[in-house]
């Protein structure tokens, strides 16, 4: 949503807090665990963008995570909507939530959050640092990591970040591609501004770029 107008102030009462209710971080944890344990289908990031746009903007941040987490679990068949609805009714009636502990499993998932998987070096990148590149005009069918505000703009490659899975073809399922750090002058993105000039750096997959 880079460049959109009308959202007002960034700094507002309460905006410094990481979360505003206990359920929010429990949803964060469940979402993270769905990934670690391989319980879901699809990427939470991509599914959140399937929300109807007005609903996406209305919803709070962790509301979107709750929505995407439930959908990942429904799509994998791990749970059904009826099961969730039944527990909503039970808990609303004051029924006690189930509790089950498994300390070994808890230790295992905490260790998993510390695992690292850095980008592989890009063996044969098409663009070298210093190359002028243009972001392709495109209208992706769903999730993309190419912001709208940069499409059609020309920038300069500053670094080759490495190889990563191309995220647009079935989220996170595409073949690996080089990722480039590309520098854009602000007036090439947004035109002249009373703020003067600045630089916007974007990490862009090779498929998004063409020789300028």
């Amino acid at each position, binding site marked *: 949503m880079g460049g959109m107008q009308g959202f007002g102030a960034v700094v507002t009462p309460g905006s410094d807090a990481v979360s505003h209710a206990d359920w929010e971080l*429990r949803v964060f*944890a469940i979402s993270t665990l769905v990934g670690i344990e391989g319980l879901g289908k699809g990427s939470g990031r991509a599914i959140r963008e399937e929300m109807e746009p007005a609903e996406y903007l209305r919803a709070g941040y962790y509301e979107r995570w709750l929505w995407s987490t439930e959908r990942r679990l429904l799509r994998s068949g791990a749970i059904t909507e009826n099961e*969730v609805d039944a*527990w909503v009714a039970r808990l609303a009636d004051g029924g006690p939530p189930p*509790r089950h502990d498994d300390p070994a499993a*808890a230790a295992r998932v905490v260790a998993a959050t510390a695992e690292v998987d850095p980008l592989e070096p890009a063996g044969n990148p098409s663009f070298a640092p210093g190359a002028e590149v243009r972001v392709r005009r495109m209208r992706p069918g769903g999730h993309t990591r190419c912001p709208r505000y940069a499409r059609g703009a020309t920038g300069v490659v500053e670094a080759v970040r490495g190889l990563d899975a191309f995220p647009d073809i079935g989220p996170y399922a595409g073949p690996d591609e080089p990722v480039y750090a590309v520098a854009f002058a602000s007036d090439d993105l947004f035109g002249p501004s009373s*703020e003067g000039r600045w630089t916007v750096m974007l990490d862009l997959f090779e498929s998004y770029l063409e020789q300028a």
Partner: protein
Amino acid sequence: MSHEHHHHHDHDELALRAAALEAVLVEKGLLSTDQIDAIVERYERDLGPQNGARVVARAWVDPAYRDRLRSDGAAAIRELGYGGFEGDTMVVVENTPAVHNVVVCTLCSCYPWPVLGLPPTWYKSPAYRARVVAEPRAVLREFGVVLPPEVEIRVWDSTSEVRYLVLPERPSGTDGMSEEELAGLVTRDSMIGTGLAASPA
């Protein structure tokens, strides 16, 4: 426009739905309750800006460490024991008298969890995501940061799996301070770029 204010009325409903989802997963044996507790605790207690502050303070006192941070941020950060989800590849961008860096994710909320924990609400807000790439000085002013016009602002939009940490400038008047004292001056916002490191009291 503030989502938090408009929608208090359905917070109870969301809390109930979240609890129901947890209940289904626990009842079916797909997750244990203490797995969820442990992840919440890890991200509330272990991972947070106190980690990034140690990285910054080390860079301020150890030029060789600063060089390693510049060439491979994630590897240098791992030397201090931090790494993992949303930090597989981390790039450290250094503020200087000529350049001020600020980090955003216009697509959603990418953020270097191992060194900063989970992002504050404003970082995830449509206002920040929309505005900081298009009017960075106006946004920085809201945070009380006013930079001389000759300073180049570089806005890093985290659009890939690379995560960014800003290395703020070391404040003046800190020559005799220990690494631990210096870490106390490193605010979360100074490592996102919406703030500067604090001056010594």
